[in-house]
């Protein structure tokens, strides 16, 4: 069953009386969130009362700083403290101070917490030593008096030239060549994407607080408390109870606070352990951009065979990702990128070869979409080029190839349910009037090309100063962890009826703006038949909540939400059985008073009928897929080649919408990040250093750069999750960039195959040899 929700009118009917979160009942009666609770932590955020890490006060805390490498690759010979300076009032930490293993817990464990003497510096801005002192002025002054003695080594910057492979996969057919014989058309293409910075507005921040009996607590801005917890146990040699991780209010993550907070927590804790007092490790923007992870750059090559009617016959796809200096999460980023590389399209013969290699740039890591935006940009742009070659509409070529029920993916996964590719496509085409706009832009292009005053000029064509174009893209996004990831981590969530009669949700899923704290009470209260505001969220503190896994992979609503629903159902059954079958809502207060607390823990169990072989990459790569279509309309300035993205229609199938406003917010925010990726966001490198490592030089879209957005949410539920949710966070990130690139082509007639589509690249494409001019 598929249902859809359309944007609601600005003025909605009366709110339900059950919503007691309303702080200003007078105004709220006409709000758009009618019938749904408002963001739970919203009032604190709106009044400035919410406490982010840098807002927390720990009396006597010192200020920490990181001494970083200034070379891309070198041997570290010594760390020298200026002998003319008095070092007695501060502490300095080097690798020699690390009590446990000098490794950041991750997949391959190749990254040191601090480069040891004699060890190899592998990237610019790599942490080498730490300093803490009683005030920022002292720390700033002494930081420059610590000298790194090094011996330069030759760096590698080209991922294709690197011989150190972090991960490699081969998916699908071993032989695709036969399918190329006899094809009506064979199209080749190469697509490139660069680094992208997550650019959460709150920089990374962590405060370590030493306690009694060897305890070390960290309070910080983070997505995955138990990743940090594991890292602290390993590197600091702490027990599970000695290490404690508390999430402060978190100002955005987008993957950027998935793995990197572990190393910051370790740095803060090492300093705190040495000076015996709390240490604040608060990054400024420059340090955050210079040192922390980015989206993996990628080179994707396509060779595609098709029939004249657009039917795909074979796809041979090669993916190379740049992992940067350390492995971090690269194998799983590459895996997701490779598994999505063929797009949501039926094709009898597909081979996907992917590898990620090591270079001497700061490590790349998690960023919304996790490899899929890179490969789906390539796939969608390639398919749009194929449509152009065949004289087909971009919508039509997708209609002919998009997955339907029963189709088989390159891993051999049979799509048995919840396939909404065609539906999101048709909705986007219809809502945006795609074909009508396309016809109009074609007419305008014809008029411009016929009216040029200087025939050889790409731009001097009549009076038009801008060209409008419209573009379309379609994407899929695997819901939750890849392959058997969920089975391996075996997440646990809990729902508790406390002795005081409160219903409490205990999860390690973090709120970072996406709405975790609001949707869990909705899901749990719905099962229990009580108002959402009667359900409390336990503080995200490893001393309190179980390990429900990391807040990543769009898995929170789907997987952790599913666990909470199951736990709530069991809680309800237990309480109702104890109370002669009377409804939970009528008896739970009395039950708590009579029987004390009831706590239900729910552990993840494999979804029925879903299995994946990690060794052969065959089987169900994901339990289900989300589907998204995007239509973008752009204006390209014909003098400067600047691109303005004017409107976007985004259609996203998320399985089940828990809260329409928050869900739309995810689509809109992800769409704008994709627009930035397509148009302006770019890291420039020199000798392995990010040149634009400031907010004055790394640009993200402002309100003036953002398109007007229309979001249509589709619900094509996944039967394995009790509520049907498939997640929403990453889906919109996959589809926005190729839609914008297609729109630029529609406007000015050139394909930009390397992101972002800067004016320089567009001008070069327009003036390059053999390029068509609109």
């Amino acid at each position, binding site marked *: 069953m598929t249902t859809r929700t359309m944007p609601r009118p600005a003025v909605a009917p009366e709110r339900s009386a059950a919503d007691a979160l309303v702080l200003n009942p007078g105004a709220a009666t006409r709000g758009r969130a009618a019938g749904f609770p408002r963001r739970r932590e919203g009032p604190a955020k709106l009044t400035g009362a919410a406490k982010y890490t840098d807002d927390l006060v720990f009396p006597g805390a010192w200020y920490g700083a990181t001494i970083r490498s200034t070379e891309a690759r070198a041997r570290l010979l010594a760390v020298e403290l200026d002998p003319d300076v008095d070092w007695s009032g501060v502490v300095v930490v080097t690798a020699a101070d690390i009590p446990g293993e000098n490794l950041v817990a991750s997949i391959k464990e190749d990254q040191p917490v601090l480069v040891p003497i004699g060890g190899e510096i592998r990237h610019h801005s790599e942490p080498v030593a730490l300093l803490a002192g009683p005030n920022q002025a002292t720390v700033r002054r002494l930081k420059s008096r610590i000298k790194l003695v090094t011996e330069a080594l030759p760096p590698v910057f080209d991922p294709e030239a690197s011989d150190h492979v972090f991960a490699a996969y081969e998916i699908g057919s071993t032989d695709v060549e036969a399918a190329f014989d006899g094809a009506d058309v064979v199209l080749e293409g190469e697509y490139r994407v660069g680094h992208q910075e997550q650019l959460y507005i709150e920089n990374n921040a962590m405060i370590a607080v030493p306690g009694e009996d060897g305890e070390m607590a960290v309070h910080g801005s983070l997505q995955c408390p138990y990743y940090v917890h594991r890292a602290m146990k390993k590197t600091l040699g702490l027990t599970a109870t000695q290490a404690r991780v508390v999430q402060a209010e978190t*100002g955005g993550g987008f993957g950027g606070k998935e793995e990197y907070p572990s190393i910051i927590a370790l740095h803060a804790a090492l300093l705190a352990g040495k000076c015996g007092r709390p240490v604040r490790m608060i990054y400024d923007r420059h340090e955050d951009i210079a040192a922390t992870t980015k989206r993996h750059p990628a080179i994707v090559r396509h060779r595609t065979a098709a029939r004249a009617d657009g039917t795909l016959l074979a796809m041979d796809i090669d993916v190379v990702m740049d992992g940067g200096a350390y492995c971090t999460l690269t194998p799983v980023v590459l895996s997701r990128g490779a598994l999505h590389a063929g797009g949501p399209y039926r094709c009898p013969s597909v081979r996907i070869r992917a590898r990620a290699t090591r270079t001497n740039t700061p490590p790349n890591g998690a960023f919304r979409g996790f490899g899929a935006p890179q490969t789906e940009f390539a796939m969608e742009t390639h398919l749009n080029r194929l449509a152009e070659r065949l004289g087909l509409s971009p919508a039509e070529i997708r209609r002919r190839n998009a997955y339907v029920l029963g189709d088989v993916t390159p891993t051999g996964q049979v799509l048995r349910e919840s396939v909404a590719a065609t539906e999101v496509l048709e909705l986007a085409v219809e809502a945006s009037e795609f074909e009508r706009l396309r016809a109009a832009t074609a007419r305008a292009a014809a008029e411009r090309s016929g009216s040029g005053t200087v025939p050889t000029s790409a731009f001097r064509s009549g009076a038009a100063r801008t060209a409008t174009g419209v573009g379309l893209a379609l994407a899929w996004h695997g819901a939750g962890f890849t392959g058997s990831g969920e089975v391996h981590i075996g997440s646990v969530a809990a729902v508790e009826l406390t002795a005081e009669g409160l219903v409490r949700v205990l999860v390690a899923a973090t709120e970072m703006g996406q709405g975790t704290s609001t949707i869990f009470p909705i899901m749990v209260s719905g099962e229990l038949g009580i108002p959402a505001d009667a359900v409390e969220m336990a503080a995200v503190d490893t001393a309190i909540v179980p390990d429900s896994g990391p807040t990543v992979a769009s898995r929170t609503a789907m997987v952790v939400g599913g666990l909470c629903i199951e736990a709530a159902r069991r809680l309800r059954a237990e309480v109702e059985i104890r109370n002669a079958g009377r409804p939970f809502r009528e008896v739970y207060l009395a039950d708590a008073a009579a029987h004390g607390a009831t706590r239900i823990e729910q552990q993840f169990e494999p979804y029925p009928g879903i299995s994946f072989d990690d060794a052969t990459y065959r089987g169900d790569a994901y339990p289900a897929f989300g589907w998204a279509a995007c239509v973008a309309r752009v204006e390209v300035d014909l003098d400067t080649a600047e691109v303005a993205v004017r409107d976007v229609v985004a259609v996203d199938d998320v399985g089940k919408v828990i809260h329409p406003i928050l869900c739309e917010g995810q689509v809109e925010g992800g769409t704008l990040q994709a627009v930035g990726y397509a148009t302006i966001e770019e890291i420039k490198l020199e000798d392995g250093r990010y040149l634009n490592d400031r907010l004055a030089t790394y640009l993200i879209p402002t*309100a003036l750069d953002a398109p007007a957005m229309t979001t249509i949410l589709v619900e094509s539920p996944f039967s394995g999750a009790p509520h049907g949710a498939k997640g929403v966070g990453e889906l919109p990130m996959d589809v926005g960039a190729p839609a914008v690139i297609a729109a630029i082509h529609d406007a000015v007639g050139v394909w930009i195959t390397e992101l972002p589509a800067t004016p320089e690249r567009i001008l070069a494409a327009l003036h390059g040899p053999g390029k068509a001019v609109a």
Partner: protein
Amino acid sequence: MSRVRFLVNGAPAELDVPGMRRLLDVLREDLGLTGTKEGCGEGECGACSVLLDGQVVDSCLVPMSQVDGRIVRTVEGLALAARERGMLDTLQDAFLTFGAAQCGICTPGMLMAARAYLDAGGGPGSDTIREAIAGNLCRCTGYQKIVEAIAAVAAGDLA
């Protein structure tokens, strides 16, 4: 050190501070008003926006020597009257209702920029609203719901 006197959220403040100390640091560290956030320290993101005599400014770029004798308003002062009744003011309420705040770190600055726009008689048109908040970066919302919330207040829909 110089003596600086100013009004912050209606209350008089008098401090001995270095003239070049940033208003942002005085608000956060000396006065405990941590609602105002630092996002970049160089006037690009607008997370530290406050009102200085009713004009929106980046408090990371304002030295205390320029604050003497002036009126500072921060997010904590936005709902002063309303908060005494345990409520949000109309603008904050609109942000909550429309879903204009996600992670919340840009929100205090965004609210101040919106407040300045509305106080100057700004209307519900999307173009002028976008212009007014163009100095305030948000990475979560795509700005759509922020513009809608401000427009609703400007149109009097929520008054």
